[in-house]
């Protein structure tokens, strides 16, 4: 009994499934890289002789991209945009998660604040930008504020749901073993809600990105959004495209970083799901 073998059908099945997945991985990887490369090649060669003023050859866009962003305007326009974005997003997550835990745990607080949350979140933050700019000016703070405000809500709402959905039996277990309030929060509520927190945080990330660009298109002199809008306004189509390409790359990178963090933080959750689907 004391040397019960540590294997189980679940473990074996998960392993078998993982093995199958591994053998398919090279093909999936080839597809993941190959398809975008093919599309880019098609764009490159298809647009080589383009004379359409709105769709210049990709070659020219890349040249413009290099001239603008690597690294002429990088420090002056790209870095501040990224800085605003990251700062505002972290603020949004910090406030969204802590407020979400509070509202998820306290029914009275939820009843008081939920109508306000629902009302404010149904106003697109972009629509509020003119008011913010009118009252707060054109500084960086107004953009950070707008990005943070808009991106709080997805993570806030999913945190509330996640905390409220914590398994009742785990909470009873915590009571039987007389865990302290703080232990219950740290060891049960937060981990139990974390899959939903991450789902909300991903939506928040996308909202933050959109508001970052939009906020720079309203009255800002610097930033990727401002330069892209300026290029469009001065018929610099190549410059406009270069901005769009940069935004695409930044968005992709932001998602990539998010996915890596999520994979680390939710390793238990992803593993448990895999084990459940192997059964």
């Amino acid at each position, binding site marked *: 009994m004391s040397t019960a073998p540590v294997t*189980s059908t679940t473990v074996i099945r998960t392993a078998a499934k993982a093995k199958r997945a591994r053998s398919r991985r090279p093909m999936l990887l080839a597809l993941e890289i190959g398809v975008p490369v093919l599309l880019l090649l098609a764009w490159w060669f298809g647009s080589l002789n383009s004379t359409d003023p709105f769709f210049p050859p990709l070659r020219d866009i890349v040249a413009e991209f290099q001239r603008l962003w690597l690294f002429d305007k990088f420090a002056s326009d790209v870095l501040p945009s990224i800085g605003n974005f990251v700062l505002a997003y972290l603020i949004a997550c910090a406030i969204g998660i802590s407020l979400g835990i509070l509202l998820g745990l306290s029914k009275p607080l939820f009843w008081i604040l939920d109508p306000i949350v629902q009302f404010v979140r149904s106003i697109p933050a972009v629509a509020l930008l003119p008011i913010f700019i009118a009252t707060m000016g054109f500084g960086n703070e107004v953009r950070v504020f707008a990005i943070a405000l808009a991106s709080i809500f997805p993570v806030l709402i999913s945190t509330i749901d996640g905390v409220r959905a914590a*398994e009742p039996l785990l909470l009873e277990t915590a009571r*039987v073993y007389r865990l302290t309030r703080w*232990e219950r929060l740290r060891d049960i509520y937060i981990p139990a809600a974390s899959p939903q927190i991450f789902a909300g945080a991903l939506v928040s990330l996308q909202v933050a990105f959109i508001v970052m660009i939009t906020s720079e298109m309203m009255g800002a002199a610097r930033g990727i959004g401002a330069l892209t809008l300026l290029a469009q306004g001065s018929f610099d189509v190549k410059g406009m495209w270069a901005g769009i390409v940069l935004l695409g790359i930044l968005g992709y990178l932001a998602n990539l970083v998010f996915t890596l963090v999520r994979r680390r933080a939710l390793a238990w959750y992803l593993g*448990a799901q895999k084990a459940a689907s192997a059964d």
Partner: protein
Amino acid sequence: MTNTQLVVEHLSKSYSVKGADVQIIADLTFDVAAGEIVSIVGPSGIGKTTLLKCLTGLQSITSGSARIDGKPIDGPPEEMALVFQEYTRSLMPWLTVEKNVRLPLKHLRLPKSEADERVRAALASVGLSQAVDRFPWQLSGGMQQRVAIARALAYRPEVLVMDEPFASVDAQTRFELEDLCLKIRDEFGMTIMLVTHDIDESVYLSDRVVVLGHRPAIVTRIVDIDLPEPRDQISTRAMHEFAELRTEIFELIRAGAIPAQPVQGK
């Protein structure tokens, strides 16, 4: 009886359902001695789980009293640990086996060496020393329930309470876990109280079986199980006395069964 540890006197429990009081438990009186294994059996729906929740302080008692070591139970007592039937939902999926077992020890502020030793000893005695770094969802059902038992053991309660602990595992594993239960009592000197719907299991494990019946629930009878120790899955179950006790309890449960409710007309 030597040294009574848990005393239940005229315990009753009612719920308020849509403004009307529904009495689940009418009047229960029994006690459990230190080091004893007591099973609670009864027809399904009789309120066995409700009773356990009252005794572990998870639910309040409507009237009467329950005392552990002389102290009235009005919240989860530190002398008790509870093992649930649903092991998949009572273990933290984000913690490894070792951390699950260690979790209840944190606020006891034990010296690290003692906490380590308790976790190690608990996992060793349920046969999971090799699985410390695994996650619960990587283990079979029987192993997960052992983790839950190890967690209770590491907490070193005086009374270990189990709610149909072996109902969701296969028959083979059930026998192993039953013997584990007997071993724990001997090794740790714990008092064990469990709810079960398996009459054979109650006879095999217990020193006494408390049979509940009727609605609202009362104690139909307390049956002494004077089978020889140590118990053995094959020879004990083959004994003539075993069969007699099983029959006796079976008849008591049948006599105390809740009559099917007539379907209410609209």
